[in-house]
């Protein structure tokens, strides 16, 4: 009987979100404002989008189904194509004159960004100005393409986000082929899960107040705070780990036990030499140079909550 009740309760739990979703969709079906009609007569200097489309029909095809081909865009951008490209009446009168072509890419990177930021200046794009990419001369069009994008989302110039990033960050591309790596090349996480390419107020454009705060967003188990802390762990995960790839387990920058010995040269075993002879000779063998080395015993190296673990054992 109890089992039946639990099963019914579980089914109800499953049903609730489905019902909510159904109701939400029903409401959402009537949930938009009527789109404003496009301007009928273009102001002086403007040709009007219809004139643009007469020659650039393929662009309309590309834009269809994207936010820049939507009614919402019409609401935000009163002059259609010319909202971004600028007045094009002169170009329509003399289309062969390259000087008159309203080509956005002829503008400076800063001006291009200013154009996009007339709409995209909030949320994730809030800190574009003054960000690393902006100050190194990148434009929005360096990564995005409004007319001929290849990605499923964000209208990127390449099929995937990682391809855009790695087209410049080639060192990172090689790092990702190392044995220990985050699942970026497997497509399970993306560069933008950790970095905000549009700028942030922290170094390396990370999406958190610090490296550790960023790491905790996936590794919340390490967040603590713990009874017994390991000070360098709290200051920066990057003291011991490299995020993009390593050939040492757990993305360690140097393999254990030598990573630990870069700080711990204490009496007895921490400062002891573990070398090739230790590996080769069973009579000299040591359990500090096999498997996971120091962490075979100091299993709680990120912090421990046990009263008997001041040395971060179990």
């Amino acid at each position, binding site marked *: 009987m109890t089992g039946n009740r639990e099963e019914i309760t579980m089914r109800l739990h499953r049903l609730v979100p489905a019902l909510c979703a159904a109701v939400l969709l029903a409401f959402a079906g009537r949930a938009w404002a009527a789109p404003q009609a496009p301007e009928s007569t273009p102001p002086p200097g403007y040709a009007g989008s219809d004139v643009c489309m007469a020659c650039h029909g393929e662009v309309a095809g590309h834009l269809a189904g994207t936010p820049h081909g939507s009614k919402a865009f019409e609401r935000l951008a009163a002059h259609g194509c010319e909202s971004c490209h600028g007045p094009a009446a002169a170009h329509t009168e003399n289309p062969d004159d390259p000087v008159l072509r309203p080509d956005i890419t002829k503008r400076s990177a800063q001006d291009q960004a200013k154009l996009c930021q007339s709409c995209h200046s909030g949320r994730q794009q809030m800190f574009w*100005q003054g960000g690393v990419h902006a100050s190194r001369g990148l434009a929005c069009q360096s990564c995005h393409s409004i007319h001929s994008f290849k990605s499923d989302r964000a209208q990127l110039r390449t099929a995937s986000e990682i391809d855009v990033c790695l087209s410049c960050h080639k060192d990172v591309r090689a790092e990702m082929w190392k044995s220990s790596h985050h699942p970026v090349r497997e497509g399970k996480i993306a560069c933008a899960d950790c970095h905000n390419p549009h700028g942030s107020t922290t170094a390396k454009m990370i999406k958190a107040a*610090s490296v550790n705060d960023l790491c905790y967003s996936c590794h919340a188990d390490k967040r603590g705070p713990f009874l017994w802390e390991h000070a360098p762990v709290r200051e920066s995960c990057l003291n011991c780990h490299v995020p993009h790839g390593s050939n040492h387990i757990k993305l360690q920058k140097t393999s254990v036990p*030598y990573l630990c010995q870069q700080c711990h040269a204490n009496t007895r075993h921490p400062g002891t030499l573990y070398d090739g002879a230790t590996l080769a000779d069973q009579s000299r063998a040591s*359990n500090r140079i096999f498997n996971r080395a120091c962490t075979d015993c100091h299993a709680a190296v990120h912090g421990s909550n046990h009263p008997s673990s001041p040395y971060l054992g179990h």
Partner: protein
Amino acid sequence: MSTHRKLALLLLIALPATAQEPAQEPRSFTFTVDPIVLGIFESSVDTGSSKWEEYRDRSSGFVIPRLGIEGRGDGDRFLTFRATNVRRDDARYTFGYGVLDRWALTVDSNKIPHRFGNDGRMLFTQTSPGVYQIADPVQLALQTALEKQFAANRALITFPFLNGLISPYLATAGFVDLGLERDRLNANLGFGSLRGFSWGLDYKHEDRDGNRPYGASFGFSNATEVPEVIDYSIDDAELAGSWSTDRAGVRFGYRMSTFRNNVSTMYWDNPWRLTGATDPSAYTAPGSGSIGGSGVGFADLWADNESTVVFADGRTRLGSSWYAQGSVSYNTMTQDDPLLPYTLNPSIQGIDFDHSTFDATDVNKLPARNADNEVNVTNLSAQVGGDLGPAFDLTFRYRLYDYDNASKRIEFPGYVRYHAVWEEIARITVPFSYTKTDLGAELGWDVTPSSRLALSYNLQSWDREFREIDSSDEDVVKVSFDTHPGTRFSLRSSYESGDRSIGDYSPEAAENSFVEPEGVTNLPGLRKYDEAAREYDQFNVSAQLFATDALSFFFGVTGRDEDYKESRFGLVSDDVKQYNAELAYAPRDTFNVYLFGHRFDRESFQRSRQSGATPSTNPQDDWDLTLGETTDTFGLGLTAKARAWTADLQANYSKTDGNADFFSPPGGTPDLAVGFGDYEDVELLALLARVDYQLNPRAKAGVGYRWEDYTIDSFLLRGLRNYLPGALLLNPDYGDYTGSVLTLDLSLSFD
């Protein structure tokens, strides 16, 4: 609250807002399926290595590798559904629905496997979550055999002896695969326009289940592993509002995160003992041949914790080209798990501060029943910048990150070492705190419309509590020059130099966790590299040349040399150089090819001194280590289209050669040091070939073949050979493999 209830709550919150939208007549919706890919995987691999499927599901069978549905309705309604690897261990589903620039709901479900090793061997049986047991007769038989040998000749309790004891039992022991699966749900509900006010609710939930190797030793000389049970629930929610105009914008919100470990304590039997006993040294067999200790071990696994953050970001324009922006946040992280007793070994008596004895298994004898930890983080950043005339610009930056560990200090009269012995050494918890500030300025000069020279200075200061160095300052000067004359060539370059100076280095700080400091045990000349004085130089040069519209070259070199000149011991230097080259040729839309090569060179140098009970003062006891690793990575990609045929070829090859070179002067201890060449030598070759045939505009048939060959030669694995099976490590397989996947698929798209 269950995941489903939380999702329901999220959706219910959405309803009133959507209901506020003006009512419209029913509208039409058109759907496009683009694409649905139906396929078959035929997979084979020659070993049981977990690396083959580390983050992937490559099992043979029917697959839907990709499914995309796009819906468009009047009034800018949209619906998207994308799925990859449907119903497999690495599946991902993303659903979106909304009205452009009005509101949108996105729900993303992402399954991420992470496999650590296959076919580990263990004597244990997990009788309930987190409880690993060995049959009592087995424990008793092993204990009896040890005691017998201990009485006869303790010196013969060696690894070969242990191996002989354990082998018959391991021969019939079970296997365990080590790995976990993250089930992530990410839902976002947003309302509002790009211009003006908008708000959004983000909700993330992750269930993480599985296991990973856990060091579960009962003494100094041996090592034991059990699979650490992973059963986590993580919930994050963020409510944020945003207001944005051309001139200014703000974003503010509240974020909370909870981590719940559903198995917070793990228990495991001692393979070598059934009954608890004390052991004065905790140097279990082999080695000294001591055979005492506890019959059962336990561990306090990751503690439940919470984090709450309030935050605000803002930006505004200050006149023509000047702007100001900043962010501020306050984060409170808390953890208040109940504390476990000192030990479960009933034979151990605790000794209190007044030298009275108590039952060390009694949790009521602890000075505190809960951890009661709290950290408050204040984060502040500000940036002001703008143009100084037509050719110059100036930027000022300030950042502050204050990590204030407000946890109370708890004094413990002693602790139990390895579940075997009470150590009458009073310890006290140490709430490490620090404040990091950055103050910097950058002056930019547009030398030409296409060239920019920038000079920047940054001062990074640290103030720490309870560490060896109270304060340090690091001056960083950086020069960068970027140019792209014309459209054929671009050059990016930068040089950076840093100099970190420190105040007094206090080795005694390491004793802060002792109620009565016993004297420094670390070498006085050691400087921990994360806080030590250092100088570094870093450079980056990359150039790209488009020789023709079709042919481009890229070359880049980066380097960073770190010197810890005041560090007599510890990390002394760390140098990295990387070289990149790439050639890309795309003469037409139907053909492109690229080839890249990359070299990573790293060399670090560290020094130490071997000591006995007190820090050695004899330079002949020194030893030093030069770690070198070189990784060469090559890649080739080719895409060619001819009529209805498309061919793709990708090849990636990565090889790392690492070496550990030791030196120790003669005469001391040690007086000889031997290097080794398997400092994590790793090689991976991955080939992917694929051919597609366009049957008609809406159907495509394809065949793909992926082949991978992976080898690892690691000193850490080699070191195991001296110990197994007596060390009772899990020893799972994450080593070499050669594997392949043949894929046949049909891609369809339709309205």
